[in-house]
């Protein structure tokens, strides 16, 4: 019986080798995939079990974690949650994180590679590991001013420091209170989430960075003008054809001016005047002459089509359509047809013009510090592209000053400060909907400190009567005042 016993012993060894292989497969080979499985609450518990770092604006925490006596150990809460929701996002046991809570998750929970030394220190000293804090570039006064000025209207505001790219204000309306999603009662969190999903105006959407991008309307004329100036075909004084109604090639459609008005006299106007009064026919004609490729190229130098941009919240790329026929080129030159832009993008256009044509990469996070206040990371302003030459930028600046001084953007005038801006009133493409009101601006024109873009969906409170000058410009003005008032 010894031979079968020896064979059986071999079988037993083989069984255990298989078991060891199985354990290795699960715990080593597949471990990463299993740990990253969305259904794995352990990962969540592990994350929640750590002291998560705060998100700080102007020296005060807008998101922080406090110890609680339940399975998750820490409760995340948001001070002034609605105001900062598009910045912080939320961090929920059911839906994980969004916005910065997601984008900077590994820093906030202390697991980032850059925090390795700090973790090692904690391991040796036996200290409870803590997440790092992130300090934002947001200017609380500007944020509040944008929030207040937008009132109950749907829309978004983005303000940038044109010289660095730092985001000074980022507002999206309607907003929501992230605190209702961070409850550790998963049923309640889920119910709140479902309610927000179905809520009027999509509060969960970050309209400043990600929401369904908007047609930029006449604010896009800045890019059309930039393309014309860069091409060397035009100067601000160049005379453009500006009929009351411009027939388009290959179609019976025509382009008219806003309210059927005429711009200039005798069907002619200068480029500067055309921008000042936002003359559609002149820019449509200009767009036809420049061609879609020139417009697309210029828009891309301002940041359109950049699908890698993150601040570090992912930014939905703004688009200039790929294939455009002649009549649609004319509409595209006016920021209509399939041209789409985020409020951040239009703020970047103003910022680049303000910064002598140099477009800085926008960013939200100024400083990352460990719990011991050691600086782990400091924002490093970087050039994204040279959107236009300094000469073109100066010309555009002067033209934009004209818009505010004596054109469609008078509502943005501030006494003692020269504001450069451009209005936009964008048709949504749906007959029954009022147009979106746009305004993008920077100030002071000679030494810019803030660039801003405002969109008010469907004309906001004014509805069908809305223009960018009427509805959006006052909001931009409030933000500029808030930044300069300090």
């Amino acid at each position: 019986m010894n031979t079968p016993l020896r064979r059986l012993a071999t079988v037993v060894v083989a069984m255990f080798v298989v078991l060891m292989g199985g354990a290795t497969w699960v715990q080593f080979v597949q471990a990463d995939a299993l740990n990253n499985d969305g259904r794995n609450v352990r990962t969540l518990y592990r994350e929640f079990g750590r002291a998560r770092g705060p998100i700080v604006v102007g020296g005060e925490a807008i998101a922080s974690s406090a110890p609680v006596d339940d399975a998750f150990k820490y409760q995340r809460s948001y001070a002034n949650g609605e105001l900062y929701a598009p910045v912080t996002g939320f961090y929920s046991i059911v839906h994980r994180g969004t916005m910065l809570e997601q984008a900077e998750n590994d820093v906030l929970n202390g697991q980032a590679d850059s925090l390795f030394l700090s973790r090692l220190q904690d391991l040796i000293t036996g200290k409870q590991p803590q997440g790092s804090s992130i300090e934002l570039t947001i200017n609380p006064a500007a944020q509040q001013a944008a929030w207040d000025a937008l009132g109950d209207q749907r829309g978004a505001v983005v303000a940038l420091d044109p010289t660095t790219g730092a985001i000074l204000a980022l507002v999206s309306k309607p907003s929501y209170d992230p605190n209702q999603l961070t409850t550790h009662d998963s049923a309640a969190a889920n119910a709140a989430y479902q309610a927000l999903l179905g809520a009027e105006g999509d509060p969960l959407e970050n309209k400043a960075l990600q929401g369904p991008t908007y047609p930029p309307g006449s604010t896009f004329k800045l890019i059309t003008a930039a393309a014309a100036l860069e091409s060397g075909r035009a100067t601000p004084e160049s005379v453009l054809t500006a009929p009351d109604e411009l027939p388009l090639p290959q179609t019976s459609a025509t382009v008219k001016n806003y309210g059927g008005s005429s711009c200039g006299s005798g069907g002619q106007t200068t480029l500067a005047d055309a921008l000042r009064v936002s003359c559609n026919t002149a820019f449509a004609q200009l767009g036809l002459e420049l061609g879609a490729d020139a417009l697309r190229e210029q828009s891309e130098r301002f940041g359109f089509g950049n699908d890698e941009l993150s601040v570090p919240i992912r930014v939905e790329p703004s688009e200039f359509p790929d294939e455009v026929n002649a009549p649609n080129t004319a509409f595209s030159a006016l920021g209509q047809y399939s041209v789409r832009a985020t409020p951040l993008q239009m703020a970047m256009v103003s910022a680049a013009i303000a910064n002598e044509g140099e477009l800085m990469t926008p960013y939200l996070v100024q400083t990352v510090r460990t719990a011991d206040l050691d600086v782990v990371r400091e924002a490093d302003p970087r050039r994204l592209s040279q959107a236009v030459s300094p000469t073109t930028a100066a010309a555009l600046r002067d033209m934009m000053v004209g818009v505010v001084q004596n054109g469609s953007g008078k509502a943005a005038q501030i006494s003692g400060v020269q504001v450069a801006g451009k209005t936009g009133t964008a048709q949504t493409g749906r007959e029954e909907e009022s147009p979106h009101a746009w305004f993008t601006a920077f100030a002071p024109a000679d030494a810019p400190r803030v660039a801003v873009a405002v969109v008010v969906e469907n004309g906001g409170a004014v509805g069908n009567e809305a223009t960018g000058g009427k509805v959006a410009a006052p909001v931009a003005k409030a933000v500029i005042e808030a930044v300069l008032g300090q």
Partner: protein
Amino acid sequence: MATIQPHRVRPGRGVELALLVPALLIGLAAYALTGLGVTGELPGNVVGYGVGMAALALGLHVVLRWRAPYADPVILPVAIALNGIGLAMIYRIDLGMVARGREQDFATRQLGWTTFALLLAAGVLVVLRDHRTLRRYTYTAMVVGLLLIVLPLVPGLGVEINGARIWIRLGGFSLQPAEIGKLVLAVFFAGYLVTNRDTLALAGPKILGLQLPRIRDLGPLVLAWAVSISVLVLERDLGTSLLFFGLFVAMLYLATERTSWVVIGLGLFLGGAALAATTFGHVAARFDVWLNALDPEIYNRAPGGSGQLVGGLFGLAGGGLFGTGWGKGRPDLVPYAESDFIVASLGEEIGLTGLLAILLCYLVLAERGLRTAIGVRDGFGKLLAGGLAFVVAFQCFIVVGGITRIIPLTGLTTPFLAYGGSSLLANWIIVALLLRISDDARRPAPDLVTGPPPGTTTAPLPVRTPGSSRAGAPRREGEPEPSADPTERIAGPGGVR
């Protein structure tokens, strides 16, 4: 001139004592670390616990010195270490449940069962002076074993838990009679097979190179198959069914050395399982869960979804190579983390490293058992030791294989680790029997000089009371017991060390 030195066998009790120290320390350290990891303080009763476990282990050690001085020195320390690790993890799950607001004190109960089981093991060693005595109870064992298996089916006694009817409730205690059943059936199989092995092995036609048994000799095999399939069908317990059948086929193979039995046995079982999988929803669901565990549809299915299995996989993955540390993971998230899924709990907190160490412990235990079987001189002892060692290893394979998705998940307890009194009792009795048999295997043969004259067998004759109750044993008269066993000539004096 060359002289032949008699091979001196060291009893190994000193080695055993030396091994018991780390074995006890592992369990105690795990227990202390669990308290430190969860609450930040040592468990209140850590000293009492340490002293108690040490007293029990050392007590058993003393019993071995007294009653089985040549017993294998590794088996007891390995079992003590596993039991200690299991206790620590059960205590850890208790703490996890308390942290979630659910009072649970399985650890104290398990400690009680451990005490009882170790005392019982000592009792077995004291009372059972010679394992061959058990052969007298071959058919009693059959009856008792079958009764134990069908016990949960008795109305009013058996209870159904999670669809499987393998429990009985006796005054406040839930017991799994099948755990004891596997032990009793191993005794029956050993006794039956040692008597009938020649008929099973040699008679019958040979087809395609396989020595087939005679139809009438198939009776017991068919019976065992029928029993395990009926367990599958009536008690809805795939694991126990697989365990019984695996045990029977392994022992049949040991007795007959005929591969044909293994082939026939496997064929029958796979056929039965396939039939069950297509006929019964709950078996089919198990296969579904096994093959498509991570599929969202299967994961979310309730009841019968893969939530528990995948939860265990998440736990194992979370532990990674080195684990979270005692008390630092969340093993309590998986249902039955202290019993069926204790391996996943351990994998989470002590990592792949710890889990592999535990598997090696089992392997050492099983191989020491098989070594004992090779060393022992009588056929009954060989079959019993081989069967018992195999059943422990096979049970591990079914449980751990189920949790790591090597085979479909079945509800079996992990020997020594998992919470559950019946399982602990059964496995400690197995340890006691293996120790008893290994004492016989390793005990040096009587000195040749003072031994019986040449021409007689060197092995001690076991049957002292031939008139006793070997009821039903067919060849009682003149059966030349151990000397008929050909292996006796192979296993010389000294056996294994």
